């Protein structure tokens, strides 16, 4: 119950903003849309490159911005949106809060939860059919292939979408022979297998694979350790799977051969990055910076998408019940402008939001997937991630 009892400046601001909008609302009855944001606080493992930590309010600020955006439209339509943020380390407490939320007649939940917690929550009888869960954080492919569930939508891209985006770029550049370096953590192994699948899909050849298991302090010894570690087979490019940023940051410029580094470090496939500025994105970036005092990251963006998807469904249907909203979100009419140059919508076979994937290095956008030439009979966006025939779970576009 940590967050509920401690003073949180963000929550305080959230309430202030909510209160302000309340004053502005007119006396006429308004449509009220309440959203619960659940965050499981995760103890971050110690990493060697610990210099640039992620902002602790990642995700929540993106959600708040979308609430503000929705309320701007809501002013004209007599619709009012509110956000309640609940954080805990305990999956039981988070599940219990969700149960209370549904019991109080609510239905909309944004989930910043690891896959295991999310999957269990989605299977709860009080959720199933009674809620729309928006996954904004878990990238696990299993949630999109074997464990997908009606009512569970994903605005965060899957690992497969990221790895497909990267492999399209490597093939486009003719850097077809790749050297995989992966960490030993569970998520690194998941991303490594996504990369291998994508490599096969687009015809890039894995020429070597190594697992980083050293425990020397690379901050002091990268120049000695990394050349030796990357010596051997020739390759065009290094692809690294190190999601927590333990050792990968030390690969660029230290490899034995002068080769680019891509993957979770170097050139990265991402949901969002500060360098995305085309298609009006500069405006979203500056709105976010005004609100949060920092740059918008992928988690913020996925949360923003979830809340904006809700806003769009409410605006178009003039309804706030979850069955109407869910049917609209998965219907042919739904489209969302997400500042990525194409309209975004949900795949009706697993609830994943289709979206372009930017490929960026820390200071510039390099490419935007899907890359030209990767074709698909239905939508080029479906060259990223799991396509309909690859998905075996049951997922219904209505509740």
């Amino acid at each position: 119950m940590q967050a509920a009892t401690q003073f949180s400046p963000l929550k305080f601001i959230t309430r202030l903003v909510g209160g302000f909008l309340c004053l502005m609302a007119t006396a006429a009855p308004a449509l009220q849309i309440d959203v619960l944001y659940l965050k499981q606080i995760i103890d971050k493992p110690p990493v060697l490159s610990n210099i640039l930590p992620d902002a602790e309010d990642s995700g929540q600020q993106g959600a708040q911005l979308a609430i503000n955006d929705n309320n701007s439209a809501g002013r004209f339509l007599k619709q009012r949106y509110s956000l309640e943020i609940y954080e805990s380390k305990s999956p039981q407490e988070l599940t219990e809060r969700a149960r209370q939320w549904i019991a109080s007649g609510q239905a909309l939940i944004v989930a910043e939860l690891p896959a295991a917690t999310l999957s269990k929550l989605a299977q709860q009888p009080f959720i199933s059919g009674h809620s729309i869960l928006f996954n904004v954080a878990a990238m696990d492919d299993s949630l999109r292939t074997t464990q997908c569930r009606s009512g569970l939508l994903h605005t965060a891209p899957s690992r497969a979408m990221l790895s497909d985006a990267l492999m399209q770029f490597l093939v486009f550049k003719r850097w077809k022979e790749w050297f995989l370096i992966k960490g030993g953590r569970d998520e690194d192994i998941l991303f490594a297998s996504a990369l291998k699948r994508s490599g096969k899909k687009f015809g890039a050849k894995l020429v070597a694979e190594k697992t980083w298991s050293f425990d020397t302090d690379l901050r002091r010894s990268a120049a000695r350790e990394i050349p030796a570690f990357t010596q051997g087979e020739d390759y065009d490019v290094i692809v690294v799977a190190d999601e927590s940023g333990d050792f990968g940051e030390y690969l660029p410029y230290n490899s034995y051969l002068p080769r680019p580094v891509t993957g979770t470090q170097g050139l990265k496939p991402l949901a969002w990055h500060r360098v995305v500025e085309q298609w009006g994105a500069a405006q979203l970036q500056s709105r976010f910076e005004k609100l949060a005092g920092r740059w918008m990251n992928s988690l913020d963006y996925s949360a923003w998408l979830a809340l904006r998807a809700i806003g769009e469904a409410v605006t178009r249907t003039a309804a706030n019940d979850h069955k109407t909203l869910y049917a609209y979100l998965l219907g042919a009419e739904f489209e969302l402008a997400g500042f990525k140059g194409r309209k975004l919508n949900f795949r009706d076979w697993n609830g994943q939001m289709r979206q372009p994937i930017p490929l960026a290095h820390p200071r510039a956008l390099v490419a935007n997937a899907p890359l030209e030439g990767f074709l698909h009979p239905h939508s080029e966006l479906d060259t990223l991630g799991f396509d309909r025939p690859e998905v075996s779970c049951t997922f219904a576009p209505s509740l």
Partner: protein
Amino acid sequence: MKTIRISVLLALLLAFNSAAHAARLYVSNEKDNSLSIIDMNSLEVIDTIEVGQRPRGITFSKDYTKLYICASDSDTVQVLDVASNQIIANLPSGEDPEQFALHPNDRHLYVANEDDAVVTVVDTETRTVLAQIDVGVEPEGMAVSPDGRWAINTSETTNMLHWIDTSTYELVDNTLVDQRPRHVEFSDDGKTLWASSEIGGTVAVVDVESRKVIKKLNFKIAGVTADRIQPVGIKLTSDQKTAFVALGPANHVAVVDTASYEIRKYLLVGRRVWHMELTDDDKFLFTSNGVSGDVSVVDVDKLKVIKSIKVGRYPWGLAIKP
């Protein structure tokens, strides 16, 4: 013999003089902080002038002595003296002005302030702000009806057309349209309003009297995927029979029959075509192509692209001085 020579000289001088006064096309170059000036006879760039940062929308005063320029990153609307090519004033426009429309009274500018979710009304004579009206998120397109009654603003993230009563400066109605409305244009008779939705890929035709969408146009170009078709600029001929719709990264302009709403033709122009301008006699259409950095010239009778003119980086707005 001498007199003949003098008269030839005079004729030449006159010809030169009239060339100097030939119609000109002004083009704002968003990423060059400049305007390119194109001679309409030779269809060549004859001058480039430095202006404020990130110039986008441009429009002339009624007598064509002044050109108003949205200098977005300078947070001002600049006033260019057309005779001297000098900036003579910076108007208080509100933050990040992107597009604007001049009221038929030739005095009030309605400015969309993209970063601030407001529309600012500026008096160009007293150089003061008359009103600021709250609108949706990311206001972009602006138009004032020919009778001066309505100012219409589009908000890109709220997906609405906002109807502002120009006599009270109050927002009185909103019309929902498809994703990311970019541009609005009234027909000359003021009866219909055309609004493009960039991400929705559609153009809505709105009946001004009822403020309802009466027709939604869709576009389809062989060999171009649907989500590359992103309508932005719209221009209607003065006889109101034809509408041109710039389709952004589809690199085409759609030619629409306004009676049947059928697409008569798609014209291939430069890359990422955004805005357009027609000559007064409707004979020529000019398009700004941001990515290829040029302006395409369309012969309207023949519906053929006859020339492309290289201008600065990211050409955005266009305005013709007859």
